């Protein structure tokens, strides 16, 4: 059975040994010496590079557009800088005040040539990878995107200083999410990877999560699922105190970071949500020995117990992660002998 089939079975409720190494197009491009900007400028030319790297590993899910989650904000006029290494960042906030919100023309998203090219690239990647891996398209969640719109630090202050503005930002960020994300689903994306790093327990309280994150995440997850497409939700850092709320959001798969106790997470999330995680992506995957990778992966599987489980690192892996560690991880996840 190949990767995509394993994931499909897992999503249907079967207990199969599924495993993804949380590799992204950013990982693939960096491994080959390309920055993420190259994919935005020439998706057609760079897609074969991404596909080759994805085919070089036996990861059941391949994550696409993780380095380009700011594209919808770029379309709306946000100016982003692309460092040689790392993800693009805003040169200046897209939104300074309420008046700026009125200026945003969301219709631009559907007609933007870059967005359409990326969508075609996601369809093409799915065609190339076939059953080898499921392609999960990454869209940034409303809360984190709202933080990007005004600048993260400013956004953190606004949570206390101007709640009305925060809600206005979240409403429009949700509309942007849907305007950008749903056409990917309509084009045949088989999984949507929703990332919400700013909703982490390392940054905001449960009280703020409940008030500002929960309603919008619930809405967008429901919208995607209504179209029949599964959602993998990932929130970085410690999410232990909000997993009961995430259970109500009902993603198909919840990916937890290495700070979270897998056993407890599984108990809180229940059987309806497939648990994914959570080997330390840096300490173990990048800097650990092959033996350590094997030991930690087995530990995760043991902690997950008999529930539906997708073995993954706790977060996206670095392009410098040794290929040997990646292969060891995937072999353990798939129940293959590694020695």
């Amino acid at each position, binding site marked *: 059975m190949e990767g995509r089939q394993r994931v499909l079975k897992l999503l249907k409720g079967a207990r199969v040994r599924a495993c993804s190494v949380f590799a992204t197009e*950013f990982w693939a491009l*960096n491994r080959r010496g390309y920055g993420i900007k190259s994919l935005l400028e020439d998706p057609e030319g760079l897609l074969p590079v991404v596909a080759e790297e994805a085919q070089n590993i036996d990861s059941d899910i391949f994550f696409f557009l993780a380095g380009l989650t700011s594209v919808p904000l770029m379309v709306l006029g946000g100016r982003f800088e692309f*460092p*040689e*290494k*790392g*993800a693009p*960042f805003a040169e200046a906030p897209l939104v300074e005040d309420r008046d700026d919100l009125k200026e945003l023309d969301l219709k631009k998203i559907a007609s933007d040539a870059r967005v359409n090219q990326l969508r075609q690239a996601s369809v093409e990647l799915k065609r190339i990878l076939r059953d080898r891996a499921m392609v999960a398209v990454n869209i940034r969640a409303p809360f984190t995107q709202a933080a990007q719109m005004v600048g*993260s*630090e400013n956004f*953190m*202050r606004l*949570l*206390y*200083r101007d709640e009305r503005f925060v809600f206005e930002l979240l409403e429009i960020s949700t509309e942007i999410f849907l305007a950008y994300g749903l056409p990917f689903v309509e084009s045949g994306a088989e999984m949507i990877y929703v990332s919400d790093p700013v909703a982490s*327990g*390392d*940054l*905001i*309280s449960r009280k*703020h999560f409940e008030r500002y994150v929960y309603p919008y995440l619930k809405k967008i997850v429901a919208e995607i699922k209504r179209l029949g497409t599964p959602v993998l939700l990932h929130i*970085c*850092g410690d999410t232990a*105190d909000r997993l009961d709320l995430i259970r109500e959001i009902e993603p198909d798969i919840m990916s937890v970071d290495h700070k979270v106790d897998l056993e407890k997470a599984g108990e809180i999330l229940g059987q309806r949500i497939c648990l994914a995680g959570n080997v*330390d*992506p*840096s*300490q173990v995957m*990048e*800097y650990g020995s092959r033996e350590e990778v094997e030991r930690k992966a087995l530990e995760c599987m043991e902690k997950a117990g008999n529930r539906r489980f997708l073995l993954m690192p706790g*977060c*996206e*892996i*670095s*392009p*410098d992660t040794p290929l040997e560690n990646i292969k060891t991880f995937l072999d353990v996840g798939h129940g293959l002998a590694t020695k």
Partner: protein
Amino acid sequence: MEFEGLLKAIANSVLSMDEEATAERTQEALAAGIDPLVIINEGLVAGMNQAGKLFEENEYFVPELLLCSDAMYAGLSVVTPHIEREENLYLGSVVIGVVEGDTHDIGKNLVKVMLEASGFSVHDLGRNVPAKAFVEKVREVNADLLCLSTLMTTTMGEMKKVIDLLEKENLRGRVKVLVGGAPISPSFASSIGADGYGENAARAVRVAKEMLGITQAKASQGGGR
């Protein structure tokens, strides 16, 4: 007793994230004749330290800590003009920044605030800082401490590059290196040759003082060099 009450009110207004009240209480304390350094240490910084403690205990999070620091700065802007220059706290010189490839700087900014509140002179290089820029600044200001931050697993390797470059430039022996950020662990810190690891902003300051051999007594005297 009146002094104590005023200082406590300053600390409480910092802790309750109230800029206006902090500035007003600070003004009252000055008018009552309290020494500006006492206002800073036992009012403003005490409030910020309490906020840091609540942050460590998961009672406060980043938004709360940012607003407390805004309140502390509101008080500092009132009291600073009244300080004689030689009275300023000076525990040492720090260069701080987010490593190349990463632009997440909230954590770095919090560490900067806490270090400044403790009496360090901080040179902030911002975010997405190349290794070379860190090393040049360390040399330029003769830094006692270099603080490197990253939030992403993909850019952790940059920290080692900075440390390697310090070695190459024969500066490593002159400066302590403190690393921090969500994906960083103590063992990662030691594996790349860093001197210390700060799990969060409050602990980073404690570790910085330990690494530089600054005792509590010395800090409260405003010692250093």
